[in-house]
């Protein structure tokens, strides 16, 4: 009898201890690439680690990497929700519809979808104004190209990527009227071998600047192997390729946002919102511009960065024509967010069509 009650007591106290250890909020993250891609997914995971550090025992995080976009991601999200996640960040464009579907089945779980446009009562969207960083890259690219050919590795022809191409092109043309963009679509976010092949193809076509909108550092490695080519870090600093080929970078800083949203769930104040922040609020960072960039170009780039951050300059300021020559923005007019979010056209001067 005595032993039984001791055991029962021990079990009970273990139960209480476990309950005390259990976190108040469980946050899940769904990643499209591996956390070690040193690009897109790496930065989201840095955000997750920042949440863990900020909240300590109060918050538990879980993540699943290399989740294919589409139906398989629904399974992963459902599993996270069933395991008791209170807040789930789904961090790739292709998770948009799966997120909405799963959110319908779990009305008490909050979802946050990155870079999409579909929302619900328990689904928020968030993204960063990467095009602000692209403007600065375009400026540096236009100034530094000697062959006047800039290569651009596109992932999927979605507004976010098209916007980046347009922003970079406008600012490259502004400082170099002869510059041409060669655009290659590879229909994947993460495939190092294919990304390297695409970079190699562009370099063989005479491009001496390669911009990428894919997640791995493979294009940087390909550019380094080829030599005489400059690149920019994408989504993350990719600092291991400094000072060349990587001469600057766009860094996505998700940590403050992830901490704020987790706090909102803890406080019970979470509501469905739409966030789209840029250089000003710090969601988009510009990585160190290396010494490979001439000092005057660097100064101009930094001045542009400050003007964008303070709101004095909008990267899409007219006059800008669409590819077919029709007027998109009159002189001095700036693009509204609605048009930017649905952007599916090239601006005047870019060759080729946006795949539909």
């Amino acid at each position, binding site marked *: 009898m005595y032993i039984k009650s001791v055991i029962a007591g021990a079990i009970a106290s273990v139960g209480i201890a476990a309950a005390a250890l259990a976190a108040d909020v469980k946050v899940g993250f769904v990643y499209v690439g591996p956390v070690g891609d040193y690009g897109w997914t790496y930065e989201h995971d840095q955000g997750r680690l920042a949440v863990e550090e900020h909240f300590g025992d109060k918050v538990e995080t879980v993540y699943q990497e290399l989740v294919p976009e589409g139906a398989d991601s629904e399974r992963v999200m459902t599993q996270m929700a069933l395991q008791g996640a209170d807040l789930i960040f789904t961090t790739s464009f292709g998770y948009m519809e799966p997120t909405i579907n799963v959110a319908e089945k779990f009305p008490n779980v909050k979802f946050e979808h990155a870079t999409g446009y579909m929302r619900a009562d328990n689904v928020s969207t968030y993204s960063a104004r990467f095009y602000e960083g692209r403007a600065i890259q375009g400026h540096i690219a236009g100034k530094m190209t000697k062959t006047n050919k800039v290569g651009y590795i596109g992932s999927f022809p979605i507004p976010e990527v098209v916007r980046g191409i347009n922003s970079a092109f406008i600012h490259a043309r502004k400082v170099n009227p002869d510059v041409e963009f060669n655009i*290659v679509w590879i229909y*994947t976010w*993460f495939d*190092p*071998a294919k990304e390297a*092949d*695409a970079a190699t*193809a562009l370099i063989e076509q005479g491009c001496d600047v390669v911009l990428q909108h894919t997640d791995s550092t493979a294009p940087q490695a390909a550019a380094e192997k080829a030599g005489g080519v400059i690149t920019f870090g994408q989504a993350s600093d990719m600092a291991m390729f400094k000072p060349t080929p990587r001469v600057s970078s766009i860094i996505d800083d998700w940590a403050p946002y992830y901490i704020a949203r987790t706090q909102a769930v803890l406080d019970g104040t979470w509501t469905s919102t739409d966030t789209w922040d840029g250089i000003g609020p710090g969601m988009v960072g510009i990585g160190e511009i290396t010494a490979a960039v001439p000092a005057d170009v660097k100064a101009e780039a930094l001045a542009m960065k400050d003007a964008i951050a303070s709101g004095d300059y909008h990267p899409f300021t007219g006059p800008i024509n669409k590819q077919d020559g029709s007027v998109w923005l009159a002189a001095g007019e700036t693009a509204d967010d609605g048009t930017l979010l649905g952007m599916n056209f090239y601006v005047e001067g870019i060759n080729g069509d946006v795949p539909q």
Partner: protein
Amino acid sequence: MDFSSINPALLIASLMVSATPILLAAIGEAVAEKSGVLNLGVEGMMIVGAVVGFIIAVNTNAPLLGFICAAIVSGIFSMIFGILTQYLKSNQVATGLGLTLVGLGLSALLGRPYEGMKSPTLRALDIPFLGDIPVLGKMLFSHDLMIYFSVFLVAIVWWFLKFTHAGMVLRAVGENHDAAHALGYKVVRVRMLAIMFGGATSGLGGAYISLARVPQWTEGMTAGAGWIALAIVVFASWRPWRVLFGAYIFGGVTVLQLNLQAAGASIPVEYLSMSPYLITIIVLVIISSRGNQGAPASLGRPFHASS
């Protein structure tokens, strides 16, 4: 549209680089399947080879040693599959898929400290005279050792399967393991060796991605190349030269479509992107449509010496 910017010599050179990882993995898998073993763990063996090759090359500064170690380690790694399926009679499909998962996880673990590091790459061979031929020299005689080795390997496998006694035993085991067993051949031993060979070449293929094609280590970097290799073995109807042909067509169309895009071809990008898969399948199906091209009769079937 201006295609003059596409340099055929550079294109062929890139094609061979792009095709070699798949070719190496596929030729090994073809041998394994010829012996009657369906190993779906190619992707896992490749990525283990990629990470091991990279680690060794970085630490010793000798890329060739990286390749050798990649082959050895992936060969040993494939023995997990071999022991489970040949001695413990586990299901080949499930075990192969398991091997891929283990490989992906293991490589991520091993590779973590090496992410973002640079590796010494394999130098292109400096072939006297041949390398100086205009166009042809750049196209065919300016590659690294592994590219020539991969073609040489295909020739060896072809010769081995077609002309040697051991090759015939291997094929007999793959066609009818009971008959081969009745004749006194060691079915399990033959299959273990075939699996190990497949593992070793897959490892080489993976190492070629991390040491030559990209070159760097990134988690999950084979990104499905192993599955392409598996498909090519089937569409090439288990014949070595067709495997080479299939891998080069796939690599070639992949590189060509990227170059066409970069050169601004007015072909819709969607068609270009699907073209490597489509063209490879169509071409291999057409050349395989004549004659007896069946799979090895015992492919994927478990062997019990008692029956």
